[in-house]
């Protein structure tokens, strides 16, 4: 076996089928998009070569800037929320929760398996203000916080926050299960030893657990990042990108440019931008890992 795996040609042969498939399914469309991005119009209707004009347009397009800012805000809030709360929940499962472990874990994980559209509809009802107060507004008004009752998804100031809260609620169970698994892998002796050495809970987490959890944290961050860059269906289900363009993400903008405005060329430029954003973002998160090795 060693001989086989030590042989470069054999490795190449083993890798080739998968690589070929990957290239056809993943790389080819990316290259295709880049090729499309120097044209304007819709293939089949109007289709002219325009060189780099589309790229230039991107820099001046305030709708694009708006979508980018919305998307970056969303990535920041949701990523920290999902991974952070996931970690907190995992610690809670591991160290404090004694009874009903499985029931609670199942309940927290449950939103992950719900279809996005259903979750969107659920939260539309929770945030509702007209014709009847939804869950959130009725609780607020019943505990005497009438001044806080507001159209949560109907105004620019709160819509993105409301959307982020929904997406954090959906995914935190997923990350908590991953972290919980990682915590179970940490030998009890290490934790015991730390406690004997006089670690309080905070120091235990800071000095012992977090370094051991680092690889998993980075994995979770990358998961969460790639999920949030693609922000599309949840925003569509909850707010349709509104009000105005307060929750319109890059992918939504790309979709409307390509398919509603019929500017496939310009849409491809945005697609290329999203692709680069994914690559750069994933690299940045991986840098945390690098430092450790150096």
């Amino acid at each position: 076996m060693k001989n086989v795996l030590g042989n470069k040609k054999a490795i190449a042969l083993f890798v080739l089928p998968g690589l070929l498939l990957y290239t056809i399914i993943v790389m080819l469309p990316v290259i295709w998009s880049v090729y499309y991005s120097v044209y304007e119009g819709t293939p089949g209707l109007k289709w002219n070569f325009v060189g780099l004009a589309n790229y230039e347009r991107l820099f001046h397009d305030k709708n694009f800037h708006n979508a980018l800012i919305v998307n970056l805000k969303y990535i920041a809030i949701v990523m920290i929320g999902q991974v952070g709360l996931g970690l907190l929940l995992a610690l809670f499962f591991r160290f404090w929760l004694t009874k009903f472990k499985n029931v609670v874990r199942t309940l927290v994980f449950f939103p992950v398996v719900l279809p996005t559209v259903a979750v969107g509809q659920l939260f539309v009802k929770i945030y509702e203000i007209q014709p009847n107060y939804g869950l959130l507004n009725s609780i607020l008004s019943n505990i005497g916080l009438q001044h806080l009752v507001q159209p949560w998804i109907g105004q620019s100031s709160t819509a993105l926050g409301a959307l982020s809260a929904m997406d954090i609620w959906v995914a935190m169970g997923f990350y908590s299960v991953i972290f919980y698994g990682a915590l179970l892998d940490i030998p009890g002796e290490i934790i015991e030893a730390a406690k004997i050495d006089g670690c309080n809970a905070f120091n235990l987490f800071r000095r012992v657990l977090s370094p051991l959890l680092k690889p998993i944290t980075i994995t979770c961050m990358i998961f969460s990042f790639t999920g949030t860059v693609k922000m599309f269906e949840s925003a569509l289900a909850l707010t349709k990108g509104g009000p105005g363009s307060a929750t319109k993400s890059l992918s939504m903008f790309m979709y409307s440019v390509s398919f509603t405005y019929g500017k496939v060329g310009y849409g491809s430029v945005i697609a290329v931008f999203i692709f680069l954003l994914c690559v750069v973002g994933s690299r940045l998160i991986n840098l945390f890992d690098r430092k450790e090795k150096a």
Partner: protein
Amino acid sequence: MKRRLLAVILAAVMVMAMVSGCGNKAENAGANSGNKTEDTSKDTDTAKTGDSETGDAQPAKIIKILSIWAEDKDNGKLITDLTKKYIAEVNPNFKYEFELVSSDNLKQKIATLVASDDLPDVFVYESGKPIVDLIENDKLVNISKALEELGVSDMMDEGAVSLLKTLSGTDDLYDLPLGMNVEGFWYNKALFEQAGVEVPTTWEDFEAVCAKLQEAGIQPLTAGGADKWPLTRLVNSYVVRSMGGDAMKKAADGTAKYTDDGYVAAAQKLQDLAAKGYFGEGITTVDQNTAGNMLLSGKAAIFYNGSWFTEALTADTNPAGEDGIGFFNIPVVDESISPITEYSMNCGNILALAQDKYDEGTAGWLKYMVQNLGNEAMTQFGAVKGYKYDVAGDLSSYSKIVADELGKVTKATTWYEAGMNSETSTVAQDYVQTLINGDMTAKEYMQFIQDAYDGSQY
């Protein structure tokens, strides 16, 4: 050596598996298309036998119909019922395939089909700007010419024809209407009575009515703010009444700017109505269906919608009953600019025919449709679709209201986005929510639209 051989063989097996996997797919696809052709040949076979049996030499044809209505609903039912009748009465060799697409995805679907040069024979689409692109690229059948050749031009309702021609800006007709709708305000009679207000005819009266309703503790207005278009319709209402029916068209042509005072004033009107609390809280979260139900159940007094709203009104579930809801046209600002008999109208979604698939078989079907659509729609739904009819339909009280209003029309105007391209209309619709929330000024809103318009010109 042996091992190396093994590795090579293994790798080769993997590659083979992959290739054959793809090959399988291709084979299957081939098999499928093979099936299809087999089917059609079978069809034509049976058709031929049908031929010899009936003895009429009608052309065999299979048409594809792309619709946004299901086969048992609304216009979808109308089209399929008539097609079935056509097969039974005229052409036994005719077959149809029915495909359903959601109205949200219609434009994208057509764009994709155009790009792959595979438009269905007959498809539902949107009048105005969307079909202009298709007309310019020679994708659509010239309906005027086709109907003339078939000798059924006189079956079309002149009003509908001129409206559609205006919308596409062409001398000929390129689409078939599937409705004749007037738009305006529906109001809850019980609530009007409760507040002691009369139906307003001028815009001043309208604002006074809203104020009085509010004093009486009734929410004066509701609208499907989540769906965006119901809000732009309200801006449009004031534009038409204060600047004339061609004002939006002028801006779309570039002869006027969206940022001109009149348009800004109209946007300001909508913002003011909202600022006074007439729409209640969070109107941008209410969809058009919910808003309609609020009117019916007496939670709001006035609601803008088209005559298609009669579907909800005639439903047994309407809590307002058979006479609880009334209609009034958009109140007048200046009679000399736009009189009360000028209505905002549209033909709803339209039917278009693909030029490259149009042949004798489709022509026969088209002729039959145009001849019978008017009567069929009247007998089945009590509705006017833009075709001549000579049967008396059984009209519900609400359909009567619409028929009466249709009778009063002396001039038709179009809706807000009719002349806008998709980029401009998207911006106009997105930011109307920001406008009504008071997060941007009327001037800024119109500036946004103008920018989108300028940006989409190249």
